[in-house]
């Protein structure tokens, strides 16, 4: 609304004159996706962080390392998920030093779960934990808002995931190859980016196997295209 403001700032000015993007929390609105295959996992995410409707970061990296063989996909509050991932990274590093071996993906998942469940009233964090370990191979664990943990062959999360349930349910097949998984996730994230205002930017992908982590980025024309009106 156009207003004639006078020189001094009244004590109430901070209440209604401050724009949304100065006060709103940074949210990774997000679309995240993770899938197991024989030999490891493939994970993917979009790259948008918003403060209200303002895009604070359009090249965010939401695929965060917690160990050399375990990554997490972050959705929800940017601050909360970064803090949790840092703390989990500390715990798992400690485990590795104590035991002299890589922690299991299940352990990483449960460390995340403990924090997300015990502080559930203070946190807004939806996390996918995915990685490879020598006991069980590739695993994906989904830890949504309340702090429960479930393992499944593929998982989706974030505000954009609501647009993907139909796609993943109809297109997922067990025992896909690594390349098929990469295509599956790239398609999924692109579809969500097209519909969800809180998701956008580029598509970040990563594969985790016994040989370690390999990262990919899809920008501009590399992002899969689907039906558009114009």
């Amino acid at each position, binding site marked *: *609304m*156009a207003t004639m403001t006078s020189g001094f700032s009244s004590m109430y000015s901070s209440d209604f004159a401050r*724009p*949304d*993007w100065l006060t709103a929390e940074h949210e990774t*609105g997000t679309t995240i996706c993770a899938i197991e295959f024989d030999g490891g996992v493939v994970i993917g995410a*979009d790259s*948008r962080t*918003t403060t209200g*409707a*303002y*895009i604070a970061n*359009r090249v965010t990296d939401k695929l965060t390392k917690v160990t050399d063989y375990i990554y997490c996909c972050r959705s929800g509050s940017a601050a909360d998920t970064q803090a949790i991932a840092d703390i989990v990274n500390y715990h798992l590093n400690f485990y590795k030093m104590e035991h002299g071996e890589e922690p299991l993906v299940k352990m990483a998942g449960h460390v995340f779960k403990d924090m997300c469940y015990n502080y559930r009233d203070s946190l807004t964090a939806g996390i996918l934990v995915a990685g490879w370990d020598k006991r069980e191979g590739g695993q994906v664990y989904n830890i949504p808002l309340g702090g429960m943990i479930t393992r499944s062959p593929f998982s989706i999360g974030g*505000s954009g995931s609501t*647009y993907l349930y139909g796609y993943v349910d109809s297109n997922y097949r067990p025992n896909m190859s690594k390349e098929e998984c990469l295509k599956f996730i790239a398609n999924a994230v692109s579809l969500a*980016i*097209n*519909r*969800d*205002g*809180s*998701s*956008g*930017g580029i598509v970040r992908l990563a594969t985790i196997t016994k040989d370690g982590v390999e990262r990919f980025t899809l920008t501009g024309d590399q992002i899969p295209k689907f039906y*558009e*009106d*114009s």
Partner: protein
Amino acid sequence: MSILAYNGAAVIAMKGKECVAIAADRRFGIQAQTVNTDFQKIFEMGPRVYIGLPGLATDVQTVAQRLQFKLNLYELRENRRIKPKTFMSMVSNLLYERRFGPYFVEPVIAGLDPKTNEPFVASMDLIGCPMVTNDFVVSGTCSEQMYGMCESLWEPDMEPDDLFETISQALLNALDRDAVSGWGAVVYVIEKDKVTRKELKTRMD
């Protein structure tokens, strides 16, 4: 969320040398979800008078329809085309009539005077306060971003082709920093002998 940000929109109008340009995004969304990518936000109100309506989508359509009605009666009574400045006053009056229960649109007007072909741009708030400028006007959910782009890119007396490039870049880069606008864009360049409509290829995110 603010009601003006419920559907999300972005509109710019700029003055050039004996021409004006008006551009808008094409998204129709409901909060974070995008429903359609061909929603019309710029309406022709006479051969050289255009209005861009960002804001609540239902009011965008209602205000456009009500204005067209008032304009038709004006043209029948006066037997001539309306001047952009007079049209601005008509819009202002329509919005202020609803002072205490307003239409949630913040219009942008661009046009050429029917007799002198003088370029004209103006914008107003949702209760009809008009603002006429000599360079550009912006309105929408990413108005801060558009102001930044326009202040940097605009210069006076641009030819129609340059004006098209400038307004397109200003709009596109502002759109890319707003989560609720974008998904396509359209630009109208209005000169005294023709109006060109172009659709821009944008990021669809």
